């Protein structure tokens, strides 16, 4: 199919606003009479609140109000369970959701206890300093394994233990696989994924207009429609009285879809109490303590293979850290459970996951959303198997890839969207071959590595594969309208946080309507403009909202062609849309402007048919029956300094397939940005709590986000295997780059250090310190 706009590397429409400082972010909203909010948060991970004394703080000039849990009255209630557990037989799940302000007990450092409203943020913070909270400390639960010990302190005392959930999923019969196996390998794996650390912290501005009886809220959320509906229900308002705007958002990566953060519940309520606009902007320290994390899992995993390297089965038992509450259900651990199967044809699988409560911040999805944990385990098992069997790491993968003729491929377990985990399409070997060719795998192994090793250099190569379930339902919607000005306006409910929606969504509309993209005006994330939708998550914007926009644009095009056909007295087949006009191909002098058709479609006199929508406008929805599965293979060459164990990435090749690419320039940016976060996760970033549950990494001095010095040039290769599940043939790409980096990194490091020690790295992240320790341990064993 030849296209005009889809598939073009178009520069982004949103850039000029962002580059000149004109784009509106939440903290840029300034309203007359606005007050500022600060929170007193728990310094203890676990404890009983014995008393709160706010009397000194109330005396400070400029303090307007101070609220504790008690002051909230009936408004105080635990937040909703956002995602119920999947319908798996025999499941155990205990929902314990976060509260607006801690009452009786605190369960993690950073949990809000008191809300202060003042004339300025400076005064509000002064007041927080003058509030005295008496907390009786309780022993903290910080270790995943100890969380389930019989004598562990209970985080939720109405439960028998700290077990939040237990789910077993299986395919085939793993016991049978073991019987037939020549080799069975079992290891313990530890994988820790960090925090999103979006450059913009969270923020909220809430304004109750008492005369209009409307609440307006600017919120750094990925899901404005859901926030609007929830806030309206909590405050007893009609949904139409609440407008939530997710303006430009400075990166989100998952934690900004957690709902409802305590601040999101408190600001609108207090704005109505005080009849003044309120603003709260999170600071970086609060972001580390009080914006959701992802964190760690411990796996005991086993792989059964034939002696020629064919996988017969995989068994995995793992513990996942939910933090103090579990409002996001089981999305993260279910992703781990499902994505572990990866790109491979695995006939037998047994997976037992336990989720535990700990005295730490809540865990919700962060770019990859648990997929990393599963991919790490599977890729490590394959590396260990390859070593045991004397196979090349690429050969064992090639041998076990799901062959192209087996798609759609049914993994026979339930995914995070509650649909069966069926991969829609894929063709893994050609992408592997492209990646190996670009990084010159054979040449490196046979020529370069021996040469460099002879020079005393520790260089190594790694290659891993992965899949990414993307673009899940339930649905998104969009409205497309050709205005009488000739301009086109497009509205959709998803919010935007840097993905380039103002460009890629516009390309889809331009494709159908033949209008210059500069004349298409897109609004996302404003519930007054479009009030249906779920949000931006799970790499689904282009798949779900993109296809809704595609469908709405197609309908508008049909309307245009019908009207133009009458107007030009020409059959529809002869008409083309181009440059804002409909033209009769056979009679080029016969044409009509879209803006004139738009006027005729909305007449001031005469009758529009009873069932007809006026105007050149249409609204459409798209809900995929299940997600689309993207895939990739990455390769990396590293050099390790044998003195400092610093690792330098010499080359990085990312091979990715996300189906049809609407804007390959944006896809490149998404993959590269993901890889950079993966590099942070593999080597630099770690959230550290001590055994008292104190957060030790609450600044960018302690939590190391990679800079331009740590992230190398990332070379890209793409293949395009369209998804059969949506008309555009697209799959999501947002999370892909971040997923495979840690297993790739450790594989390459092991390979580099092979002359020094036979390493077996079963954990991530790996800092230079930890790498040094592992090398010492391995050398002592010999």
């Amino acid at each position: 199919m030849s296209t005009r706009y889809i598939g073009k590397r178009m520069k982004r429409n949103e850039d000029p606003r962002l580059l000149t400082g004109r784009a509106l972010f939440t903290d840029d909203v300034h309203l007359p009479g606005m007050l500022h909010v600060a929170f007193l948060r728990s310094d203890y991970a676990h404890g009983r609140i014995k008393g709160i004394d706010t009397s000194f703080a109330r005396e400070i000039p400029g303090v307007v109000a101070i609220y504790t849990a008690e002051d909230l009255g009936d408004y105080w209630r635990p937040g909703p369970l956002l995602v119920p557990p999947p319908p798996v037989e025999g499941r155990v799940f205990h929902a314990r959701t976060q509260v607006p302000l801690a009452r009786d007990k605190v369960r993690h450092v950073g949990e809000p206890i008191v809300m202060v409203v003042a004339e300025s943020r400076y005064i509000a913070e002064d007041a927080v300093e003058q509030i005295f909270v008496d907390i009786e400390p309780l022993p903290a639960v910080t270790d995943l394994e100890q969380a389930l010990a019989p004598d562990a302190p209970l985080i939720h005392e109405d439960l028998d233990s700290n077990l939040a959930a237990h789910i077993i999923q299986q395919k085939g019969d793993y016991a049978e696989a073991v019987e037939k196996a020549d080799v069975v390998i079992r290891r313990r794996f530890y994988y820790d994924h960090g925090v999103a650390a979006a450059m913009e912290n969270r923020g909220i501005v809430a304004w109750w207009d008492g005369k209009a009886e409307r609440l307006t809220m600017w919120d750094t959320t990925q899901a404005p429609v859901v926030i609007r509906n929830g806030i309206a229900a909590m405050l007893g308002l009609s949904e139409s009285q609440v407008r939530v705007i997710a303006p430009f958002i400075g990166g989100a990566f998952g934690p900004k879809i957690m709902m409802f953060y305590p601040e999101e519940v408190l600001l609108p309520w207090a704005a109505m109490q005080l009849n003044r606009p309120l603003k709260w902007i999170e600071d970086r320290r609060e972001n580390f303590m009080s914006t959701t994390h992802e964190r760690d899992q411990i796996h005991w995993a086993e792989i059964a293979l034939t002696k020629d390297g064919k996988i017969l089965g995989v068994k995995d038992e793992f513990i996942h850290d939910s933090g103090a509450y579990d409002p996001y259900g089981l999305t993260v651990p279910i992703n781990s459970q499902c994505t572990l199967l990866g790109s491979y044809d695995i006939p037998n699988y047994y997976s037992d996951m336990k989720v535990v409560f700990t005295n730490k911040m809540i865990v919700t999805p962060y770019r990859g959303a648990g997929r990393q944990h599963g991919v790490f385990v599977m890729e490590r098992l394959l590396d260990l198997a390859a070593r045991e069997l004397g196979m090349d790491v690429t050969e064992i993968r090639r041998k076990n890839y799901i062959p192209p003729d087996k798609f759609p491929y049914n993994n026979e377990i339930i995914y995070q969207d509650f649909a069966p985990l069926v991969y829609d399409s894929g063709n893994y070997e050609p992408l592997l071959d492209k990646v190996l060719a670009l990084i010159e795998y054979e040449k490196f192994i046979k020529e370069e590595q021996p040469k460099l090793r002879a020079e005393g250099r520790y260089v190594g190569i790694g290659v891993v594969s992965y899949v990414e379930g993307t673009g899940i339902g339930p649905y998104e919607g969009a409205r497309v309208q050709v205005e009488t000005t000739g301009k086109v306006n497009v509205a959709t409910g998803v919010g935007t946080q840097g993905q380039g929606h103002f460009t890629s969504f516009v390309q889809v509309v331009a494709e159908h309507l033949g209008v210059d993209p500069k004349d298409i005006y897109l609004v996302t994330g404003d519930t007054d403009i479009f009030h249906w939708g779920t949000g931006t998550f799970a790499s689904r914007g282009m798949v779900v909202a993109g296809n809704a926009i595609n469908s709405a644009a197609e309908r508008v095009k049909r309307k245009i062609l019908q009207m133009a056909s009458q107007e030009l007295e020409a059959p529809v087949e002869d008409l083309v849309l181009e440059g804002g006009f409909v033209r009769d191909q056979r009679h080029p002098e016969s044409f009509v402007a879209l803006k004139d058709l738009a006027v005729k479609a909305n007449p001031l006199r005469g009758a529009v048919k009873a069932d007809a929508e006026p105007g050149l406008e249409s609204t459409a929805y798209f809900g995929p029956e299940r997600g689309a599965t993207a895939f990739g293979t990455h390769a990396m060459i590293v050099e390790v300094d044998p003195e400092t164990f610093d690792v330098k990435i010499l080359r990085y090749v990312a091979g990715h397939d996300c189906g049809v690419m609407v804007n390959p320039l944006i896809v490149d940016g998404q993959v590269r940005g993901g890889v950079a976060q993966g590099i942070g996760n593999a080597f630099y970033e770690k959230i550290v709590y001590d055994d008292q549950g104190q957060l030790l990494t609450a600044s960018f001095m302690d939590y190391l986000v990679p800079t331009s010095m740590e992230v190398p040039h990332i070379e890209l290769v793409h293949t395009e295997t369209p998804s059969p599940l949506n008309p555009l043939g697209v799959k999501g790409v947002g999370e892909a780059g971040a997923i495979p980096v840690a297993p790739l990194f450790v594989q390459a490091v092991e390979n580099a250090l092979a002359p020094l020690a036979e390493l077996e790295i079963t954990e991530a992240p790996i800092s230079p310190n930890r790498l040094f320790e592992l090398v010492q341990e391995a050398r002592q064993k010999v």
Partner: protein
Amino acid sequence: MSQRIPITVRVNGVTYQREVEPRLLLSDFIRHDLGLTGTHVGCEHGVCGACTILFDGQPVRSCLLFAVQADGHNILTIEGLAPDPDHLHPIQEAFHDAHALQCGFCTPGFVMTLKPFLEENPDPSDEEIREAISGNLCRCTGYDHIVDAVHLAADKMKEASS
């Protein structure tokens, strides 16, 4: 805390006279007192570089200065960089051309860091560019496209001055 100190600051060619609390951060003064919200605050502890402005031509982190320290000084923010509303500065153009921004929150800090860098170093290598921007964190792009943009901006600036 209610003591207020008069200051005179020139920002983007406009002279402002204001009375400010001694503890008011320069970043808050620029954003909230002057309404120039293009300068963003990402960490408030001088690491992320999002709040970088030019202070008498030198890049500084506005979250690490007090407004009173700017008394009598000359400041340039992202709003004052482009020559006019219809044209971008070559660095801004290059960022647009090379897809060097995604969410755009860190971008003003990068652009302001790069202006004096490229004026002093019109033909930088990859390594020099990476070092120059190593005090600015970007969580979206992975930096590759920013490095491309800096080369492109260098070319554009040379063209403009030749």
